[in-house]
């Protein structure tokens, strides 16, 4: 396989101005400048192979967007090495951006006051897309994203979901080899999110476009990404398969039991009793220490059971635990 993204020891620091507070604050602010150095990205390393679809996660302010902005050539790194698709993004920005696509959920690249199609047509000129290719791509994306009803509507009149679909289409018209999505489903309803996920998967599978995706929506990750990277406070704290993340940090399954009778005490060895009331007990267990059948057998040997179910560890809880406890 061929690596398309090389990142090593990448850093980005910002000076954030701090203002004085108190009675003489405005005077102090006038004559002195205090600033704090923020390490938004603090020495990260990773590579991405051509054709991969990678989820890039992390709490707010962890450095996700800053990384994406460096990868797309918008920001100049403070130090470290960054080579994408054979380019140093910020140095050779114009040639580099001609072959990538980027969607920032919070911003639009479309012309606000003009019909959507005008922005698309401008892209045809900007990226010198051959007319045939342009028409085929537009037809394909129209099928998948249902753009036709609002192609002639000014961007300012679009709903958020429509605008996002239009922005995604605009980012793809020139057949980029690499796609960056920064929170593409932010603020969208369930149906709109699902449509965009299907589209991203389609692009990755059918066109073999490499995709790097940041999101706060765990469903995005579950549906789309085999590999995830987690960044926190500027440092990459996990890089690997989603399944491995669950194994390592979400090792706890839950067994929910409804008893046929009332028991005063329902503890079993090998599982932790989380709650017990109204003849229902919830146990938490680690599958690496005790298997589900063994636990069920242990419970059923001692108590009469009416019903039971097992809950898989879910990724949302796992990631929340990682963010909260800073497990890694």
């Amino acid at each position, binding site marked *: 396989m061929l690596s398309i993204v090389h990142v090593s020891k990448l850093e980005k620091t*910002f000076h954030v*101005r701090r203002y004085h507070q108190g009675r003489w604050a405005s005077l102090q602010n006038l004559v002195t400048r205090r600033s704090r150095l923020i390490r938004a990205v603090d020495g990260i390393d990773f590579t991405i192979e051509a054709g991969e679809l990678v989820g890039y996660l992390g709490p707010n302010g962890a450095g996700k*967007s800053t990384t994406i*902005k460096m990868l*797309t*050539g*918008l*920001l*100049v790194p403070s130090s470290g090495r960054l080579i994408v698709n054979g380019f140093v993004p*910020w140095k050779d*920005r*114009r*040639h580099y*951006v*001609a072959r990538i696509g*980027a969607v*920032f*959920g*919070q*911003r*639009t*690249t479309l*012309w606000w*006051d*003009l019909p959507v199609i*005008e922005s698309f*047509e*401008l892209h045809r*000129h*900007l*990226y010198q897309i051959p007319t045939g290719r342009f028409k085929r791509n537009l037809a394909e994306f129209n099928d998948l994203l249902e753009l036709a009803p609002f192609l002639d509507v*000014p961007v300012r009149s679009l709903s958020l979901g429509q605008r996002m679909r239009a922005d995604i289409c605009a980012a793809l018209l020139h057949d980029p080899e690499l796609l960056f999505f*920064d*929170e593409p489903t932010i603020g969208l309803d369930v149906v709109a999110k699902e449509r965009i996920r299907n589209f991203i998967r389609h692009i990755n599978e059918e066109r073999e476009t490499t995709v790097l995706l940041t999101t706060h929506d765990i469903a995005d990750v579950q549906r789309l990404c085999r590999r995830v990277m987690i960044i926190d406070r500027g440092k990459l704290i996990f890089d690997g398969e989603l399944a491995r993340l669950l194994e390592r940090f979400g090792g706890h399954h839950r067994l929910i039991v409804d008893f046929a009778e009332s028991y005063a005490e329902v503890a079993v060895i090998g599982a932790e009793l989380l709650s017990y009331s109204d003849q229902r007990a919830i146990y938490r267990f680690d599958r690496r220490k005790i298997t589900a059948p063994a636990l069920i057998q242990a419970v059923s040997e001692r108590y009469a059971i009416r019903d039971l179910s097992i809950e898989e560890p879910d990724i949302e809880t796992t990631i929340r635990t990682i963010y909260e406890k800073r497990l890694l």
Partner: protein
Amino acid sequence: MLKLYFEVAKRSFQRTLTYRAAAVAGLATNIFFGLLRVAILLALYGDRQVVEGYTVAGVITYTGLSQAVIAYLSLFGWYDFMYAVHRGDVAADLLKPMNLFSFWLAQDLGRAVASLLLRGVTFMLIYEIFFDLTYPTTIWAWLALATSLLLSWLVSFAWRFLVNTAAFWSPNARGFGRFAFLSVLFFSGFLMPLAFFPAWVQKLASFTPFPYLLNTVVEIYLGIVSGPALVEALLLQAAWALGLIVLVQAVLRFGLRRLVILGG
């Protein structure tokens, strides 16, 4: 390459046309203040027929012309690029495979042409109802005027963009902008024809790009400069435009290294 400029300019032109109500309001304001300026200047003229090469009809035409190009040259200030940097919208521009300055230049061209038609030509037509205006008489004079107008827009845009690049160094560069744009009003001959000012002010102005932004256009329109002086005026305009563009590109290269796009 020119095709791309045209396509960007075309969209910006369309965008400006969508704000028709704003254009009408601006036009009304321009006319009101035009009449006011005529009243003041005529009071100053008193019995005199010619002052520093400006006849009465000439000075009236001067007020019309300078009011008519307010929107075309964004004489009262322009902060669009500054806002784009502060709000981070410049990200969308940087994702386009086009030189950032050229992209904005092409956009401003579209805006300027639309403004020249909506606010400039319309203004002169309405002004013509109130006053006897003078016009260039030969095809060459019209050509020189057109060239001068185009160059004045280039000087104006390069200056405006240069002022806006202060956004890379300061989170609030509006104060600096106001000073920079007030200087334009003063030294470009917008408040008064530069010829009316004392020699030392004219001397001072001649070291700045501002006279080439408006005063030159006026003098060419009224035929105050002609022959070799006219060619020299056009060359100086072109030189300032070129010099400012080179400077802007250099400043931009440093500014982009400092760019910070916060949030989302």
